[in-house]
């Protein structure tokens, strides 16, 4: 993959985007963007469109998680030279599948970070319009995603410390929360991580452990703050 080229006109970019209000409409704008600004013929293709197998310069917009797992991820293996930028609001549930495919174009190597969050396609558009490299765009998305995981972990730790979150508090699907801790733990800047490894560990933390974890995330967030 000739990463680092400013010209994106010959690239395939796939957006996996399956929840409401997260940028599918913006993705349509990307289609317009490529057509009008780059003078490139691009189309929004539906799943199962036969052209998907052959057209190496098409933007794909996908909206269904199940089909993503069964159809799109195998496709990434078939097109190793294609840039796939994954955008989803449900990274943990998809991460295991991405991990299996060893996709070569994810935002970073860690399964839990693989999917850049959100449909903030406008940010991508701005970056693309300014001629930024694909790798830089990935970095943008990755930084944004990792920052939000850290902030989420930070708030949960503080809430636990303040006893706003108790042992009986409903935290939603365990798999999702586990993935959050997994992701946040690998993102703190000073190693080893003192963050909980999963939800069970989070709920078992004593006051001292909570303080350490909170301090560690604060340090990471301060570092990100300075780099913004």
């Amino acid at each position, binding site marked *: 993959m000739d990463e680092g080229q400013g010209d994106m006109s010959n690239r395939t970019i796939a957006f996996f985007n399956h*929840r409401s209000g997260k940028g599918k409409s913006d993705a349509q704008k990307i289609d317009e963007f490529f057509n009008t600004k780059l003078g490139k013929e691009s189309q929004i293709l539906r799943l199962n469109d036969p052209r998907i197998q052959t057209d190496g310069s098409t933007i794909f917009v996908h909206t269904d998680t199940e089909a993503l797992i069964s159809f799109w991820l195998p496709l990434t293996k078939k097109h190793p030279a294609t840039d796939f930028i994954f955008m989803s*609001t*449900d*990274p943990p549930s998809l991460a295991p599948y991405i991990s299996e495919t060893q996709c070569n174009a994810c935002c970073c190597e860690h399964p839990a970070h693989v999917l850049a*969050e*959100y449909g*903030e396609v*406008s*940010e991508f558009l701005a970056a693309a319009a300014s001629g930024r490299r694909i790798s830089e765009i990935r970095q943008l998305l990755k930084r944004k995603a990792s*920052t*939000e*995981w850290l*902030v*989420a*972990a*930070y*708030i*949960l730790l*503080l*809430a636990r410390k*303040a006893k*706003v*979150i108790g042992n009986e*508090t*409903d*935290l*939603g*699907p365990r798999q*999702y*929360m586990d993935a*959050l801790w997994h992701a946040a733990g690998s993102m703190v800047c000073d190693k080893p991580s003192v963050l909980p490894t999963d939800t069970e560990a989070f709920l078992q933390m004593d006051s001292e452990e909570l303080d350490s974890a909170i*301090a560690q995330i*604060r*340090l990471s*967030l*301060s570092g*990100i*703050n300075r780099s*913004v």
Partner: protein
Amino acid sequence: MSESSRPQIFFAISPDVRQLLATKSSLRHSWLDHQIMDRDPETIVRRHRENSPERQIFEAKICPAGEFAVEVLRARELCSGIVERVNPRTLMSLGPFDKLPSETKGQISRWLNGLYLESIPIESIKADIEVAINAFSAKLQAFAETWQHQTPPTSQSVGQAFIELQAVARDLYAAIGRIPDGTVLP
């Protein structure tokens, strides 16, 4: 104060906060600083005396619907939203919290809001900005009237009115500067 004992950290994370910071920076730097505070009153007086394109450009800025009035409106808009825009409870809409049950989300959100209001005098910051905007607005009107009604070469009162405008611009600059540079985290 050490890193760990700071009462809060500021963190630019959402597009809305980035927009807020851009507006804050633009109002202070591009408008108040460059167009008013940094200007030499003598230059303004000279401009008033000349019948030049520069004079017309400046007049267009200070007239009731001119650029300065538009900037005042932008400042008012900025001010009206700050209490909520830097509130950490806005972070509960982040993707990682998507699967958190709404009841739990609500509890954490209320708790964050309480911490936020205790940690920073945001209502007072907002009130100070409003006062500064009103003072600036009044002086701007006075300056524009002086500019309009004074006849050269007796332009010294224009200079004096501009100096007074600069003083309230400095107050407004300082007041806007107190807006947190991002979401206020506990």
